[in-house]
């Protein structure tokens, strides 16, 4: 059955379970392309993709760039440094300029929640959200889902606990929506000051106060990066105390009643939210996440290419065999 995502990928919240599964299913054969001697297929030949990054990012940008190049798209990186112009105005201007250069797809990373949708509504090109403020980071969510599905075969009935600064985390939001749509149970664990108020009702997750309880409950922990500026802002007393109370350490993991997978979106603060023993240990799937990141981004690029808004509903017309 052919699959359509419509014109843009802005979040996982608005996708159906079938669409998410379709992206993951497409990522599997695309992952194999990266294992070939010639790591390139002609699929997006002639398409121009702009990676528009208003926030610094190394791994997400590189991951997208690999994905684009392995599909033979022409990729242009635009790093927009902090500007005095207000964010809204910058985006409108940028959108118009990009359109005038006849591009096909835009990957956008922006500090303001909703920036990707703002851009998507104003240009004809396909837009992929690579992280917008504290809203969503859908391709990170997808790569986490793919990594877990590879290990488990299915997400249905599995328990995933997202640990740390859920309040400010777009990774957490994409994870919660994606995991729940695919049938997993989701919990969040961290200091109450870093958990969204009313998360049980708003996101349908369980709130766990102690990391020991999370380890006892979960089949996987997705450990978020603690932004160091949160300490200065008074959300936590100190990094040392955070590690002592919420750090995922080898000693704590040793008490897990079942095999537990450890995910981290990176970059890690070793010794703060995660200890090196754990990050490099046998339960860690952190490097699988990086490999899968390229694969899910290739899948999203492939599926969105040429997509139009009216195709968001599952596709009926057959893309018949030649």
């Amino acid at each position, binding site marked *: *059955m*052919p*699959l*359509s995502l419509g014109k843009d990928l802005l979040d996982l919240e608005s996708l159906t379970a079938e669409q998410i599964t379709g992206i993951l*299913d*497409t990522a*599997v*054969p*695309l992952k*194999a*392309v990266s294992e*070939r*001697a*010639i790591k*390139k*297929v*002609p*699929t997006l030949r*002639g398409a121009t993709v702009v990676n528009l990054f208003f926030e610094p990012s190394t791994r997400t940008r590189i991951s997208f760039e690999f994905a684009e190049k392995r*599909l033979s798209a022409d990729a242009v990186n635009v790093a927009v440094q902090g500007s005095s112009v207000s964010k809204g105005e910058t985006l409108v201007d940028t959108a118009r300029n990009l359109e005038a250069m006849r591009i096909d797809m835009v990957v956008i990373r922006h500090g303001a929640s909703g920036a990707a949708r703002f851009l998507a509504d104003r240009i004809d090109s396909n837009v992929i959200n690579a992280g917008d403020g504290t809203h969503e980071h859908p391709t990170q969510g997808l790569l986490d889902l793919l990594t877990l599905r590879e290990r488990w075969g299915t997400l249905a009935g599995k328990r995933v606990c997202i640990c740390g600064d859920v309040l400010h985390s777009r990774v957490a939001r994409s994870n919660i929506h994606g995991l729940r749509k695919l049938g997993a149970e989701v919990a969040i664990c961290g200091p109450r000051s870093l958990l969204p108020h009313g998360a049980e009702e708003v996101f349908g997750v369980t709130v766990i106060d102690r990391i020991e309880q999370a380890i006892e409950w979960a089949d996987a922990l997705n450990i978020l990066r603690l932004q160091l500026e949160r300490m200065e802002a008074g959300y936590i007393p100190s990094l040392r105390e955070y590690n002592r109370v919420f750090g995922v350490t080898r000693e704590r993991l040793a008490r897990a009643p079942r095999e537990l997978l450890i995910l981290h979106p990176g970059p890690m603060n070793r010794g703060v939210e995660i200890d090196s023993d754990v990050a490099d240990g046998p339960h860690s799937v952190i490097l699988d996440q990086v490999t899968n990141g390229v694969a899910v981004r290739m899948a999203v690029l*492939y*599926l969105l*290419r*040429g*997509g*139009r808004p009216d*195709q968001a509903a599952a*596709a*009926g*017309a*057959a*893309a018949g*065999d*030649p």
Partner: protein
Amino acid sequence: MTASTVILDSRACERTLRRMADEIVERTGGTDGLVLVGIQRRGVPLAARLAALIDAREGGRVPRGALDITLYRDDLQTIGPRPVVGTTELPVDIDGRVVVIVDDVLYTGRTVRAALDELADFGRPARILLAVLIDRGGQELPIRADVVGKTISVLEDQLVDVKVEELDGQDAVLLAPRRPRAA
């Protein structure tokens, strides 16, 4: 709905495949360096079937692979839902080998063109042959099959429907009116 016409029933399919297997070995002069690669989806079980027939007659085991040509299609620029991408799996290094591409139906030749491009990304075979169960004519590219099960002349609005036991529960080749495009 007009009824389908049977072109090959299951026994005829079996006889045809047996002859094709013999013809492949005849053309390649033995099984040295031979690899059979089926195009997803129905070419894959057909390639496995042909390889098994060759194994039975010649001894040894001919490697079989699968090729999914979706990422190499020449119509991906056209707007529409994306076709599902399948698995490509080549069991051996194809450099210097004799690769037989196996598909169910040869029609426009565009699938074979894509398959040739994909194979080139995996290596440089000494020779590539094309074996198809049905050649229905209508090629739009300068591509011809080397080993053909049955050549038939088919109107443009007709569909050659190949069924294989592994995917469809029975072996048969039917001629059916083309399904009307979904509105």
